[in-house]
């Protein structure tokens, strides 16, 4: 069983010396208080010293180092929809459709046109003419209302014509694509540039076209330059 009075006695002074316990206790208590005060002051000094023990330093900043990537965006008034159609066609029959291409990117770009074909082989008997121009007003999808061809004879095939040949011969990849309007003098598409393109296919007078069918997908692509 611990002596629970031992601590109290320790504060009273040496036991059994015959002197009044109250006087001895006060002297020892005072000594202990002084020692405790000294310890606290010493500890505080150490802490204060540690807090102020630092290097000299300085900093400056360079904020807002920023980098942003430009954009290349095309839009069409006839996205993902057919603009040409022929059914039961005979030699000389044709189909015409127009597309308005708008550029909303931030980078200067050039426009490419290419197409992929499918079907049983009619595309090699279809004559394709692509004419570059502009629209007055806002055309509906596939409509050529308000279309005016450029006056420039780009490839010596008539005003505004940028391609004239069989559909099957239209370049089929971006790498080999037509450059608008010509690869020799490509146009630079800046933000808000808009041009119209009229596509017309005509069935050639060739008996080998009988019974054939064909399909084509035209792709306009803008590449930053």
């Amino acid at each position, binding site marked *: 069983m611990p002596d629970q009075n031992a601590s109290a006695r320790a504060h009273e002074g040496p036991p059994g*010396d*015959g*002197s009044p316990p109250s*006087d*001895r206790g006060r*002297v020892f208590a005072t000594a202990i208080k002084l020692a405790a005060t000294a310890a606290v002051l010493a500890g505080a000094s150490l802490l204060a010293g540690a807090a102020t023990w630092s*290097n*000299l*330093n*300085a*900093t*400056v*900043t*360079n*904020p*807002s*180092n*920023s*980098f*942003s*990537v*430009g*954009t*290349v*965006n095309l839009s069409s008034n006839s996205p993902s929809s057919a603009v040409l159609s022929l059914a039961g066609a005979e030699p000389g029959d044709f189909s015409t459709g127009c597309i308005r291409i708008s550029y909303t990117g*931030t*980078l200067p770009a050039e426009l490419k046109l290419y197409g992929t074909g499918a079907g049983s082989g009619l595309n090699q008997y279809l004559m394709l003419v692509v004419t570059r121009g502009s629209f007055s007003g806002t055309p509906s999808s596939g409509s050529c209302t308000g279309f005016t061809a450029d006056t420039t004879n780009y490839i010596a095939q008539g005003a505004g014509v940028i391609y004239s040949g069989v559909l099957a011969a239209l370049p089929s990849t*971006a*790498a080999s694509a037509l450059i608008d309007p010509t690869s020799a003098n490509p146009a630079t598409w800046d933000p808000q540039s808009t041009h119209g393109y009229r596509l017309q296919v005509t069935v050639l007078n060739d008996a080998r076209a009988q019974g054939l069918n064909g399909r084509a997908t035209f792709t306009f692509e803008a590449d*930053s330059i």
Partner: protein
Amino acid sequence: MHRLKSLWRASPRKVLVAMGGLMAAAAVAVGSGANFNSTSANPSNVFTAGTISHSNSKTNAAILTASNIVPGNTATGTVDIKNTGSASGTFALGHTVAVDTPASPGLSKKITMTVQDLGDPACVTACPAAVSVYTGLMSAMPVSIPLGVSAAGVTHRYQFTMSFPDGGINGADNAYQGASTTVEYTWSSTS
């Protein structure tokens, strides 16, 4: 000794008072012990703390910016950091975490940053070669890069070069269209 113990037991205060009186007497005895002497002084020993500071030729401004970039583009900017303090300083380059917009794929994870120490821009002959400080992805730059000790009055020119690697044809980098990233660089010097 026995008497002193007895006296302590009887009256500790008297013992303490008596000891204090003895110490005072000893002090008086020392104070009254005159003799010949000679002194010399070394006055004006002055101790002045050095200063640590540096100037930044583009304080609170960007070192380089580039907008509307495309794959294959690079941009370069320089900044001069001069130790304007009176003491040598240990310099370091730090930066904030780059803020990518959009966060994914993160332009800072695509573009590379090269930082070179070109040395003193005033050097014209026998100038030391440029020292590479960092080369790598912008996002991977260490939080703090030690630049070494610079003596008082010395200037270092640092060149930052940003590169947007070309990922290839057919829109290989289309995921980064319209993306942006911003970072802040901090220069610190410590005694």
